[in-house]
């Protein structure tokens, strides 16, 4: 009799209950670990952002955080707050040389890539209207393929002398003819196009506010 019951297998209810309980405990464990690690992860991300700001603005010795309030860029007074967890208002960072001259702006942005959102930051020189640095902050692109946006030296270097006018455009490998063009990466076409789209969309979104801010300085 017992053998017959075993052969028939478990009831649907038991199967659902097993998976439900497993899912519930899994969820609870993940929430607990997430709450415990969140402050540490945010502190690490803030530190990574701070380092990236100096990397995308070569020669900068200090920076100030600017927050967009009512379509106007305003200086954040508390530097400790400036790279903390991102609040509701978008932020960019103005980098200065040792002598206090404005070198450019470090602008973070994100765009959906092949796997997940690609988060990056780039440096913009308003005098030359050119991008002068680029760093990926977070990506889950396919290892060996999409992650070439971090590892491909030629692609990365082409983003450090990139003119933004009339617009940043993607071209096929070997077809670059102008300073506003970026060659996509073979094997990482979607990811590299995403980065180029991220740069173009983000800079266009910020340009009016940056120009207005510079006029008032």
């Amino acid at each position, binding site marked *: 009799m017992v053998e017959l019951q075993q052969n028939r*297998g*478990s009831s649907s209810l*038991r*199967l659902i209950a*097993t*998976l439900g309980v*497993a*899912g519930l*405990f*899994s969820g609870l*464990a*993940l929430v607990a*670990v*997430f709450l415990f*690690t969140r402050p*540490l*992860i945010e502190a*690490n991300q803030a530190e*990574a952002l701070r380092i990236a700001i100096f990397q995308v603005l070569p020669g900068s010795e200090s920076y100030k955080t600017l927050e967009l309030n009512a379509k106007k860029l305003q200086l954040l007074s508390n530097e400790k707050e400036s790279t903390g967890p991102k609040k509701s208002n978008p932020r960019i960072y103005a980098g200065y040389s040792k002598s206090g001259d404005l070198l450019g702006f470090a602008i973070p942005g994100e765009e959906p890539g092949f*796997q997940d959102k690609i988060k990056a930051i780039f440096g913009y020189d308003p005098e030359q209207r050119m991008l002068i640095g680029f760093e990926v902050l977070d*990506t*889950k*692109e*396919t*290892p*060996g393929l999409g*992650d070439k946006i971090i590892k491909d030296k030629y692609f990365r270097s082409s983003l450090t002398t990139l003119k933004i006018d009339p617009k940043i455009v993607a071209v096929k490998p070997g077809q670059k003819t102008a300073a506003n063009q970026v060659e996509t990466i073979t094997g990482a076409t979607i990811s590299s196009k995403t980065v180029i789209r991220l740069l173009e969309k983000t800079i266009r979104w910020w340009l009016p506010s940056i120009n207005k801010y510079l006029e008032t300085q």
Partner: protein
Amino acid sequence: MKNTVEASRYRAEFVKGLWKENPVFVAVLGMCPALAVTNTAINGIAMGGATLFVLTFSSLLVSSFRKLIPKEVRITTFVIIIATFVTIVDFLLQAFMPAIHKELGAFVALIVVNCLILGRQEAFAFKNPVRLAVVDALGMSLGFSFALFCLGAIREILGNGSLFGITLFGPDFEPWIVMILPPGGFLSLGFLLLFFNWLKQRQEKKGVENGY
């Protein structure tokens, strides 16, 4: 007598993963992280450590609840348990070792699909008592970590002239860049598999000669 038999069983289950049934060198499992993240010794150890955490705790849970998990949904339940521990290890690495987390990248999340982990749940933890399952998991994951360390150390020494970031050779050393690139992973693994198979054949030959 019973205790001696039990102790030797535990020892056998532990040691088999380290050498005789090493997941990388013998079973050729978990090749994705074994090839992808082993460009330095520290990366190999970090991935091995993450796998040890996930495999040991997954085996502990699967073995503890093996009588409650219906056979029909066992694989799905294993995956839920494994994915939970992988996410936990991902959070912990992000919080405490951000540099290592950045180096390992998407491969931490990919531990979920490491056939070594799912394989041990199905082949061992689901059929054996808790202590034995944990011993098996520890042996297997330490064997996996050892293999990843070997690969990482060889590639770092030849490809970068250093071990754990410490320079080993003088300024005249010309690093073999290919070793830290993806082909270097295949080359190192190929030579290590060759070496372990040669060693195995030699031991078998010796055994035959001695009449075992």
